């Protein structure tokens, strides 16, 4: 095995039994700070492995290893400890238990453009930011062209950064941080900003860096995680709930966020002259490409002719991924006085793996009055393909 190959396969990040505690109470946290300080003054070691009053484990017994060429996605709801883990990895503060070993240079994009001075020009800020990230002057000189080109700020190089648009600032920050040629790249929600063109450039650059480095990527967007990462760590209140397959982690994560409030937003309403409505679904768990049958039983006080029925399918981000409309298919729907039964075939559903929700709206003939409305009341689970960022997955090309 030659040298290069050894390097490619080598472990660059190793996290063993790492825990970190924080204090919930500000005053007490300050008091602990002074206590630790005075203990250090008399050279007494702190027992950091024990919890004091009001302290909790922000991270609890985290373990993983990452080699060159691998990328790990960190997901979890807010407050699950993702950013804390990134800060430990970049050495901003040490763990309270366990050990982190990092081989090589860490490039961290925890906040873009940290340390930009608004009144200094873009050129001056490149040198400043580079120095903050640990680059020497020579290194910055040699990367200068790349940074400017990648950020696309050529014409604004000698304008103060305060004149930049926020997008330009983000671009400049990303360009500088990735110019370091890190062995480990830490990215925190970084692709949430910037326009689509720049995002694609970022994906491309990340792919390039990945050939020779390990990447740890924090995001709430499961699409981005699926696109960039080949392994995933799901955090929940500081504990590693799952570590391994991206698809499995995303499934669990989406399930969690749904359970944490997804249900509360669903509702079902009927308006005069409709008295009641019942939905019978043939199934709410389908395989990729299958069809769902819906039977609606509507009870109305009077006949309502020529209605418009819209059935909409939302994904977990509440974007519409599919829609049926009887008018578009030239199908007429009339409601009788008394009970009417409507049968709708939905599908085939060529959708990506995940949880979806139905919204059903029935309007009267003029399309102005809603008589039945349900929103996100019924969940549909699809066992579809996992990879890929769009909800609709073509059955074949």
């Amino acid at each position, binding site marked *: 095995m030659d040298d290069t190959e050894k390097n490619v396969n080598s472990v660059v990040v190793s996290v063993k039994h790492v825990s970190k505690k924080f204090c919930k109470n500000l005053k007490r946290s300050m008091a602990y*700070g002074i206590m630790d*300080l005075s203990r250090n003054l008399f050279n007494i070691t702190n027992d950091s492995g024990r919890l004091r009053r009001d302290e909790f484990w922000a991270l609890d017994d985290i373990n993983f290893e990452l080699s060159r060429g691998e990328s790990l996605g960190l997901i979890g709801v807010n407050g699950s400890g993702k950013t804390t883990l990134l800060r*430990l990895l970049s050495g901003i503060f040490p763990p309270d238990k366990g050990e982190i070993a990092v081989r090589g240079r860490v490039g961290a994009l925890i906040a873009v453009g940290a340390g930009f001075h608004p009144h200094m020009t873009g050129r001056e800020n490149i040198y400043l930011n580079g*120095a903050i990230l640990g680059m020497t002057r020579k290194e910055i000189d040699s990367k200068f062209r790349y940074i400017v080109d990648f950020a696309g700020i050529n014409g604004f190089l000698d304008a103060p950064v305060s004149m930049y648009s926020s997008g330009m600032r983000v671009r400049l920050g990303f360009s500088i941080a990735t110019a370091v040629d890190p062995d480990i790249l830490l990215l925190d929600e970084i692709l949430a900003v910037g326009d689509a063109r720049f995002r694609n450039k970022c994906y491309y650059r990340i792919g390039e860096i990945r050939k020779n480095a390990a990447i740890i990527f924090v995001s709430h967007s499961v699409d981005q995680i699926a696109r960039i990462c080949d392994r995933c760590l799901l955090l929940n209140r500081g504990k590693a709930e799952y570590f391994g397959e991206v698809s499995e982690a995303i499934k669990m994560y989406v399930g969690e966020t749904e359970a944490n409030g997804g249900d509360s937003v669903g509702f079902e309403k009927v308006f005069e002259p409709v008295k009641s409505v019942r939905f019978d679904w043939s199934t709410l768990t389908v395989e990729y490409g299958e069809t769902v049958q819906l039977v609606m039983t509507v009870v109305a006080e009077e006949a309502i002719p020529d209605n418009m029925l819209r059935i909409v399918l939302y994904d977990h981000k509440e974007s519409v991924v599919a829609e049926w409309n009887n008018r578009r298919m030239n199908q007429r729907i009339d409601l009788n006085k008394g009970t009417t039964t409507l049968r709708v075939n939905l599908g085939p559903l060529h959708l990506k793996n995940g949880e979806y929700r139905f919204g059903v709206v029935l309007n009267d003939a003029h399309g102005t009055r809603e008589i039945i409305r349900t929103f996100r009341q019924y969940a549909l689970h699809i066992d579809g393909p996992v990879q890929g960022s769009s909800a609709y997955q073509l059955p074949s090309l």
Partner: protein
Amino acid sequence: MKPQQLTIYKPNQRHELGFLKTWAVMARNILSSRELIWQLFKRDFFAAYKKSFLGITWIFMAPLMGIVSWVFLNMTGMLIPGDVGVPYPVYVLIGTTMWGLFMGFFNSANKTLSAGQALVMQVSYPHEALLFKETAEHLASFLITLLMSVLLLVVFKVTPSWKIIFFPLVALPLFFLGAAIGLVTSMISIVAVDISRIITVGMGLMMYITPVIYSNSVDSHLVQAIIKWNPMTYLVCSARNIIIYGSLYKPTGYFVCAMLSVILFLISWRLFYVSEDKIIERMI
């Protein structure tokens, strides 16, 4: 392939490092972050004047005002010229300048953590670099003050002795003492603002128990005793005397205090290195 350094993060890692090793590591960190110190210095020292029309000339204004006010006070005859061997305004001006030098060192060190607060939580870099950047900023403006003060000596026809070239060496303990206190308060100010406020106010009051605006030949026994036991007397007055008389103020006392300052600085530096991460995680 570039050489790859293995970095380990463990609890109480810095604490387990030996005393001597801590100082070696910190000195190395300072050396390796020269570029960072220079860039940050440039940012804060020059950028502060970017939005003003007078620009960099502003840094001459403050010392100029100081001189004007002392000369004016001299003209009113309010200052009773005790026998200090030189015109009284010169004595007071150089004395307060030296006091300012010390307070500047203290304030620079005191800002070590708070000056980089925005950065500290986002990027990992040796924070001791900030101590030197702040100190450099202070020294740059002090140099201008000193230059103007020496000009004043000429105006008052006081010729400094050639021993003035030892001034940087004589003033060095002021840095050690100021930084020693400042590094500790910079950490305390994150976890307990009250304590650091008390220290900062107390430091300001110290000037009045140090013979810089009066001579040490005061009648009161109490004042004499305070002056005698105040280490600042020896450090500040020696820095002043080397400029106006070309001699040290009570050399034995000066050397003892200088040694103590160095020791205090080393202890404080180590404490800073060991404890700063405990403090930083409370900055969030």
